[in-house]
Every structure is written in structure tokens, then in C-alpha cells.
């Protein structure tokens, strides 16, 4: 608990660096009493390091107080669309932190790491089954790195086919997550944006028009970021392949379809998954995650290194695919996250995963009907994992922006939804309840949003000033960017 002083202490103004006193210490370090070796002065640090000097209790209090200024899934409903914020089972953390796993050295002889390696092998098998794409590398550290891997695999395949030179374009829907075009660009491609049709699916005519021998790949998010099924994608896949291009699945939204349909069966060549979303590993305030990349036989030789394989001797080992695009990390990926994802997979099994996708979709549709009429719904059809409303009516009629609605929701006890994404929806409010929210929580969230829609009519001012009940009020983001203060400085110069 943190009790705020009545004078509303400016907690953020005092960093750890500004606390404590010179000479305080939070731990002691053993002193070497053996023979001394001199280190030449030239190599020694010249400035004296400025780090906080606090006793252990002070430091614990500081970070405990900081934690109390944060909202996690355990704090309440967190319907952040596109992010699949589901309950993170604690058992997964316990499992991954067992010393046998946690203390394993990445350079350990592989015979001495069979516990980890076999677990990774089985995770690989599970992901292959779930995606219908038989080959998997667990190396990518997050979704975006998985995307990079996938696109580089396409690059390599085209190179081997001798078609890389002409194929310099990747088609990306206008509803795609920013990482998709950014990844395409990082891999050296130009991006052609494909518009979304009336019904929220891709504009197939437009794809057909664009598909030519300059196209390397089409990146599609399935289900898409509107929470909708990408209708006819299995037919588009055929066209894409006919045109000599590859079809990439951004699988960040797998949660909606786990156990119900598979990227491989739909004709995708390669897909990445977001284990920190669909597989419940905690998001940690921005990672670590894991973004395995799964692919067809054709692309298998290009998978990033390492992949996990079982030898004839029954030993599991890391291997480099024949024509691998190479490594993505110094070692083997975010193994600690992969262990958690495996525990999740095994806790659920196929029936459980199908129950996950079923309930996730049911919950999103429940939210859709509860809010229907209170906010505009640009694509008014049954959704999958999430539903994207628009605050444009509120903006137009009451001058209340989606930004205000989001902030006001904090006062009602909820984490706000994703806002202003996808870009094609004006004043977008993207809500993803996930399967771990109980119906009562979804109802309470809907009630809060309905109450806010009424407040927007009645009392726009309360919206513009929101949030009122959070540890800190609405922050000046413009000035933060205009005059960036990005690190602690000695107090004299710390003023912003």
C-alpha cells in the first residue's frame, strides 16, 4: 500500500539517484584477501560512477512504491486490443525459475542441457501442430523479430530462386501493425499498402492488381487487426503462389483461432507467433517475449539458427538449418519465455486451447453486443478475438476524443483499450477482453464505457481532464518530445 501524503508528494521528481546519502549501501561485497593483481591505471574508470547510494530497505521501498504506480493484469481488466492481455499463470514463472533451468549456461555441452532441449523440442512440435507449418525456429525474441526472420527467409528463398533482384515489393494491408511495414523495410523491401474493403477484409481486387513479378510477399494478419476473419484468404493464397510470391502470416492474433484453423492449411508459407500474447507468458511492462517463426517445407532450409532437433541417439541438440538466414541473438532465444509457453501448452492441451479461442471470441462478441449503439462500429459483423469501435460520434458531437475516453476509463477502474489503431478506423477504440476475463468483468467494462459515453454528452470537461484518480494526472507528452529529458542529472540541471 502507498498512502499519499496530503501535500501530494511529487514522487516522480525524486529518482533513486536523488535519494539516500553518500556512503549508504544496499549490499556488501566480500573483500578479496588473497594475492593482489594490479590492473594498469590506464584501463581504470576515470570518472566516479554516479549510482544511487541507499540502504537495502530504502531501495526496496522505492521500487515497491514504484510498482504501486503501475497497473498489471493482476490489478484488473486490461482490454488492450491486439495485445491479448490474459492472466499469466504463476506456475509458469515457478517452473522457469527452477535452478536447473535458470542456471543453465548457454554454452553448456548439449548433453548437459537435455531437460531444456527436450522441452524446447516438444514446444516446437506443439507449435508446428497448431500452425500446420511443420518447421519451427524458436529463436526470435519477440513478434517483430519473428517477422524479420520470416521476411529474411523469403529473401533467401528468392535469392536461391534467382528472383530476388526483381521482387522488391511486399504488400501489406493498411490495417497492419506497424511492425509489418517496418520489418519489410528493414529487410530492404519497399512496401505497397493494400486497402481494406468495406467488410473489413482485404481488398482482393487490389491484391490481384498489384500481384506481379515485382512482388516478393504479402504479409497478412490473421485474424486481422479489426478482429475480423480475413475472408477468402485461402483463395488469395493460391493467387499469391501463382504469382511466385510468398504469403506471410502475422500470427499475433492466434488466440482467436487456436485449435480451429491453421496457417499452413490456409496456404501460408510462414508465420510468426507471439508467445507473450497467445501463450500467456507475462509481458513484463514491455518484454521479454518470444516470437517463434513457423514455415512450410519449402522455406525450412532458411529458418534462423538455432533449431532444435532430435538425433538418432535420442539426444536433442541445436542445429543450423542448411541455408539458414543466420542467428537473431547471441545465444538461443528467450528460453525462459519458451519454457513458460510450453507449460501453458501442456496445461491446456488441445481441448483447452480450443476452449481458449472459443471463449476469447465469445467474450469479444459479448462486448460487441453490449456496446452496440453506444459507440460507432465501423465494421459491424461478428468478430473474433477483439472488436474495434470508433469514438467519432463522440468526437463530432461532443468534442470528446478517443484519447479522452481512454483516460476516463482509468477513473472507472479499467486499463484503457488500444486507441488510434488500426489507423484505418477513425478514433479507434480496440477492445480485446481475452478468455480470462469473467463475464461480470466484461459487463462492468461495458457499463463503464456506456457511462462514459453519457458523460461525454453531459460533461465533456470531466473527460478532458481525466484521469482524476490515477497516481498522476494527464501528462504533457508534447513537451516531453520537444525538450527531451532522458536521463537523471545532478539536481541543479534536472529541471524540466
Amino acid at each position, binding site marked *: 500500500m502507498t498512502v499519499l501524503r496530503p501535500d501530494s508528494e511529487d514522487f516522480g521528481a525524486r529518482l533513486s539517484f536523488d535519494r539516500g546519502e553518500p556512503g549508504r549501501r544496499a*549490499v556488501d561485497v566480500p573483500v578479496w584477501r588473497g*594475492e593482489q593483481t594490479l590492473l594498469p591505471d590506464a584501463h581504470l574508470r576515470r570518472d566516479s560512477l554516479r549510482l544511487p547510494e541507499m540502504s537495502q530497505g530504502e531501495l526496496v521501498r522505492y521500487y515497491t512504491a514504484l510498482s504501486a504506480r503501475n497497473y*498489471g493484469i493482476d490489478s484488473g481488466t486490461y482490454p488492450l486490443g491486439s495485445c491479448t492481455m490474459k492472466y499469466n499463470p504463476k506456475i509458469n514463472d515457478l517452473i522457469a525459475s527452477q535452478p536447473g533451468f*535458470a542456471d543453465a549456461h548457454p554454452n553448456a555441452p548439449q548433453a548437459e542441457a537435455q531437460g531444456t532441449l527436450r522441452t524446447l523440442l516438444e514446444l516446437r512440435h506443439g507449435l508446428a501442430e497448431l500452425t500446420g507449418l511443420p518447421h519451427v525456429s524458436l529463436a526470435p525474441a519477440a513478434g517483430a523479430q519473428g517477422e524479420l526472420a520470416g521476411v529474411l527467409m523469403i529473401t533467401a528463398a528468392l535469392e536461391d530462386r534467382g528472383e530476388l533482384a526483381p521482387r522488391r515489393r511486399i504488400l501489406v494491408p493498411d490495417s497492419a501493425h506497424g511492425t509489418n511495414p517496418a520489418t519489410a523495410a528493414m529487410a530492404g523491401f519497399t512496401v505497397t499498402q493494400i486497402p481494406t474493403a468495406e467488410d473489413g477484409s482485404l481488398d482482393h481486387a487490389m491484391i490481384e492488381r498489384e500481384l506481379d513479378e515485382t512482388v516478393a510477399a504479402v504479409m497478412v494478419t490473421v485474424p486481422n487487426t479489426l478482429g475480423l476473419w480475413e475472408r477468402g484468404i485461402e483463395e488469395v493464397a493460391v493467387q499469391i503462389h501463382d504469382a511466385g510470391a510468398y504469403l506471410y502470416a502475422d500470427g499475433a492474433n492466434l488466440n482467436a483461432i487456436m485449435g480451429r484453423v491453421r496457417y499452413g492449411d490456409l496456404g501460408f508459407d510462414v508465420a510468426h507467433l507471439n508467445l507473450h500474447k497467445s501463450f500467456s507468458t507475462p509481458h513484463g511492462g514491455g518484454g521479454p517475449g518470444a516470437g517463434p517463426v513457423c514455415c512450410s517445407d519449402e522455406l525450412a532450409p532458411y529458418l534462423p539458427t538455432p533449431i532444435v532437433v532430435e538425433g538418432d541417439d535420442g539426444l536433442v541438440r541445436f542445429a543450423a538449418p542448411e541455408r539458414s538466414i543466420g542467428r537473431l541473438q547471441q545465444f538461443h532465444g528467450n528460453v525462459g519465455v519458451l519454457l513458460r509457453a510450453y507449460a501453458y501448452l501442456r496445461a491446456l*492441451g488441445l481441448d483447452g486451447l480450443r476452449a481458449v479461442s472459443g471463449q476469447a471470441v465469445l467474450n469479444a462478441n459479448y462486448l460487441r453486443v453490449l456496446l452496440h449503439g453506444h459507440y460507432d462500429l465501423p465494421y459491424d459483423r461478428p468478430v473474433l478475438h477483439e472488436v474495434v469501435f470508433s469514438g467519432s460520434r463522440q468526437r463530432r458531437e461532443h468534442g470528446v476524443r478517443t484519447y479522452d475516453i481512454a483516460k476516463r476509463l482509468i477513473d472507472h477502474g479499467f486499463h484503457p483499450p488500444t486507441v488510434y489503431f488500426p489507423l484505418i478506423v477513425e478514433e479507434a477504440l480496440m477492445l480485446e477482453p481475452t478468455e480470462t476475463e469473467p463475464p461480470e468483468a466484461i459487463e462492468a467494462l461495458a457499463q463503464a464505457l456506456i457511462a462514459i459515453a453519457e458523460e461525454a454528452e453531459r460533461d465533456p470537461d470531466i473527460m478532458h481532464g481525466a484521469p482524476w484518480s490515477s497516481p498522476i494526472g494527464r501528462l504533457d*507528452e508534447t513537451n*516531453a518530445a520537444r525538450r527531451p529529458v*532522458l536521463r537523471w542529472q545532478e539536481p541543479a540541471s534536472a529541471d*524540466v
Partner: protein
Amino acid sequence: MTSSRSSSAGSPHPYIPATAADRARMLERIGVADVDALFADLPATLRDPEIDLPPALTEPELIALLGARAAANADPLRPSFLGAGAYRRSVPAIVSHLTSRSEFSTAYTPYQPEISQGTLQSGFEFQSVVCELTGMDVANTGLYDVASATAEACLLAARVTKRQTVALLEPIHPGTVEVVRTYARGAGVRVDQLASIDDVSDAHACLVVQQPDYLGAIVDLEPLADAAHAHDALLVTVADPFALGLLRAPGDAGADIVTGEGRDLAGAPAFGGPSVGLFAARSRFLRQMPGRIVGRTRELHSREEGGQPRTGYVLTLQAREQFIRRERATSNVSTAQALIALAFTIAMQTLGPHGLRESAELCYQRAHDAARRIARMPGFAIPERGPWFQEFLVRGPVSPAQLTDQLATRGITAGLDVSARPEPEAANALLFAVTEATPDAHVDALIEALAEIGAEA
């Protein structure tokens, strides 16, 4: 003789609250007959394929299975002298206590600053610590790992210098080299691995150098910075942040960008990950930097009448990032390694300025003492490569492979076999790491084992 329970009329699973009754009520409100109806858009012929997954396990079964798996790895208490990029560290106990608070661990990237000050303020602390350690002006909140951070540094260097070749000075971690090559390939950037600083040229966007280098030696950065700058190339230093408790700050020696790995001090080696890549640079590169950056700001308005707006933190300079800039972003990175960055920050601050230096000093002394004891043993030699920090080469009376095996038989994990490397000192050698966290008893056991092996050889 047990199996998991089959689902009943209640919730399908402990992680899914809605019961059959809940579902019925919701379906009625939605106006569809069953959950399957909500999937009507999916192509019928491809729906509900056969999928082969092992049966679900209850929590006790899961603990049993994965407890056995953890036990199938090497005993964590076994003496090991592996390093080469991952080191056993004394991590303060308060670190895991604090990072396991669910307000930190179960939060998303802090898109709503008003209820994410915990993540944001600690991100600002992280940036400050990284700047202090590296001697740089600005830092981001962390990238995936040291290798991908270094790759991003190379891409940044290529962008700002408009040159399409980067140079990596050997010896550098081979994993880093490979990752730079992976990233460079997409960007159409060439990678030169240099054996000597003399090979830097005007073609190079940057010179990348590891501190301490891959074989453990402390590098004198200043001449390298001068050499790079003489060709208008940037100096990128890949530094061990723990060693920087003792060693000269790369910024002080002329580096333009510093990357590093924060994993080991943050917690455990975890078979190599999760990691956290440090990324710090001179302020002129700020707007070209990859990754999230936290900035300090104030409330727009004070909540109290006449009060001062209070200080808070936000993600800033987002115009660099993928979700705004899309294909013109400085990087595609989105989710990074925030929780490991938090752990790294708390660990560094727990040690504090004196503790960090003392700890690095202890590491240095303990490693040198071990090396000295080995060097004194007949049949063993420590090839000289100048001043070093925590890793040293060992040549024994038998081949590296044999030495590894013979130590393994004695319950000891040898240093990494680097005998295939081009450096002459590495020939026939293993790379041993001894740190502040290596128990004296492990060193003693090693010495004893080596004596036996020496006597037998």
C-alpha cells in the same frame, strides 16, 4: 495412475472463468446458438483439423514433469568455468523479489503513462544507469540482447554515415558477428571481420569492438576510436556492463555508440535468455535510435488548485518508431525486454557505485588468482594476451577436447573450447571464466583436477 480431469459442466479450465451457464447467457445475448457459430467466417473445409497435442496436465502433474526436466539439466551447483558471453554473477536477493511484483511483471508496454509510472520511471532509471556506465549521453530502454543491439548499432551507423559496410574487429563474440550479418543482409550492408585495426577504411560506417574482447583481454579503446574517427567511421563498443564498474567508460575513450548485455547481473543465465541489450549513444544520434525511450515531463495541469504540476514519465520521441513511422521507422522493434532491464537496474543500484566497483574488483582478483595457480602447474600454460578481466586461455598437457572430457569425468565443466579460432594464442586452448561468484571451493576443485590430469598426462 492418474490423468487430468475431463472438463465438467463448469469452467473448461482453471484459466478460463466462464462456465457453461455463463456461456449460455452470453450466447443468448449475442443471438447465436453456440460458440462454433461465431467461427462461421472460417473456411468450412479447413475448420477443426486434427491436431496432435499431448493431453492436458493439472498443476501437480506439470510440476512433476518440468521438475524432472529441470533435474535432467546439469546440476546447477556443479563447478563450471564456462563464460564466453554468459557469466555467473552474484545477483542481490532483492532483485527477484521486486521484479516478481505483478504490477511490474504483468503490465504491457506503458502506453497509458498515468497508470504505468512504475514501468516508465524505472525505464528512466535504466536509461540513466546505462548512460552512467557507458559514459554516453542517451540510452533507450533496452533491446533484445547484446548481439541484436549491436546489429541495430551497425544499421544506425550505416544510416548516418550513408556507408554500406561495417567492420567488426576480432576477437569478437561469434554470435554477435552472426547476428550483425543477419540484420545486415536485409539492409544490404556488407560486414567485414577485421583481424587488425589497420584494415579500417573510409568505406566503413563503423568499427565494432568488444570490451573485454572475446578471449577476455581488456582493449585500449582510445586508439581504436581515433582510428575509426580518422576514417569518419563511428566507434561502436560492445561492453560488458559489469566490467565497466572497474574499466574506463567507453564514452570517455571516444566511443560513439555502446551496446552491452545486461542479462547475467539481472538474474540468471537462463540458457542464454531472456537477455537485455543495452544501447547508448551520443545525443546527436538520438533521433536515429531504435527502441523505446522514456522522457521526463509534467502533468498538463495540477489536480490541486494552485498546485504545481507533478513530475511524470512518458514514452517519447515515438516518431522514430514503427507504430507511427511504419516503413520509415528506425527499427521494427516493439516488445523488448523491459522486465530484464528492470532487474538489471535494480541490481546495479543495489550494488551502488562502490559495490559495483568492489564486485568487479573481486571478480578480477579471483580470476587472476585462479589463473596464477593454474599457470604454476606443470604442463599448463596461460597464453599471454595483455591485461584481462575475468577470462583467460588455458593450454594443458592434453588436447582441449581431452581436457574437457577429463574434467567432465571429475564433475567439472571446463571453459569453452576455442582452439579452432584463428588467434595464435587460442590454438590448443580453452577459455576459462572465473568471476566474483565462482566459489573458492570450485577453483580448488579445478586445481586439484588439473593436477591429477597433469600427473596422468
